[in-house]
């Protein structure tokens, strides 16, 4: 004989609860976290460099956590901006989880930090399921990756708050069809805002900086969690 027991419990409950607590702790300290998600090579680190530099120039204290499977190369690169940067080496794990972020922030995040950029492991599949306590989730893809990234990775786009197109300075040589890209975004999420950026020319960077500053000041629309 056997019987059925209804557990009715969210699989991610433990991560989601940690993430919610982390978001509240960060908010109490006046910090907002931003989760950057993309495939490897899209330009998360280059954009993070631009954002850290820009925020510091505007007098907004900013810091970054950067996830990587094996190396500390990204942290070394980002440290040249002058912002506090810490590497999370996952030891092969394909995504960041809330407890990793919390453990790396404990005793490290400088008091007064307004914006914390969390650069996820380069992967558009696995990180999508893990809330890291962020207030804004950005999904990035570059013009060199083609127009159909959003329909190939619908979960990453559907759960994001903002889509960022990177390397727009290369759009011409790549014959990138921006209208097709925007149609692909709309087909997954009709309301997802899209920002065009180039870490090389600086296109779109001021717009993102404005958005982050509004978010830190509590005036930007809240993330579309749910």
């Amino acid at each position: 004989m056997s019987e059925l027991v209804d557990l009715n419990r969210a699989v991610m409950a433990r991560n989601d609860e940690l993430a919610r607590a982390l978001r509240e702790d960060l908010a109490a300290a006046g910090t907002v976290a931003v989760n950057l998600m993309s495939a490897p090579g899209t330009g998360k680190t280059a954009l993070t460099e631009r954002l850290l530099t820009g925020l510091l120039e505007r007098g907004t204290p900013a810091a970054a956590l950067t996830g990587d499977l094996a190396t500390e190369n990204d942290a070394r690169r980002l440290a040249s901006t002058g912002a506090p940067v810490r590497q999370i080496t996952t030891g092969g794990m394909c995504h960041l989880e809330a407890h990793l972020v919390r453990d790396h922030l404990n005793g490290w995040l400088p008091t007064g930090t307004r914006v914390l950029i969390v650069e996820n492991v380069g992967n558009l599949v696995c990180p999508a399921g893990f809330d890291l306590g962020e207030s804004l989730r950005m999904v990035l893809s570059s013009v060199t990756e083609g127009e159909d990234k959003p329909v190939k990775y619908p979960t990453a786009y559907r759960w994001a708050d903002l889509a960022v197109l990177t390397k727009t300075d290369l759009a011409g040589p790549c014959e990138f069809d921006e209208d097709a890209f925007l149609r692909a975004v709309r087909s997954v999420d009709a309301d997802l805002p899209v920002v065009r950026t180039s870490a090389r020319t600086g296109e779109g960077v001021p717009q993102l900086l404005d958005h982050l500053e509004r978010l830190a000041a509590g005036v930007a629309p809240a993330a579309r969690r749910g």
Partner: protein
Amino acid sequence: MHEMSVANEIVRSVRQALPDQEVLAVTVQVGVLAAVVPDALRFGWEVATAGTPLAGSRLVVELLPLPARCLDCGAEHLTHRPPPNPCPGCGGDLMPVGRGRELRIGTVEIEDGGPTAAGQEPSQ
């Protein structure tokens, strides 16, 4: 392959809720956009349960359809695949209404080890 993390979390959760029961099967409900591949999760289940009291139990994956509304004709339909999906009525784009992110442990089938279990003869 984060399905391994997901499988480990399900094992942990079930063992915590039902520490003393013999588990036969666990049902997991997965949304269309939950970022979980059922086959990878079933494989992860074998690995995650090995050497635990849940070894040999079945993992049943139930896919939850995602409600969507046609951007052209406004009709509502249930979709079973990630967007884009065409409207069965007019061919327009179906836009998901929710986020399809459900990932829940539903029912767990356990061996009934109570006093009335089969095999126990009435004393007479």
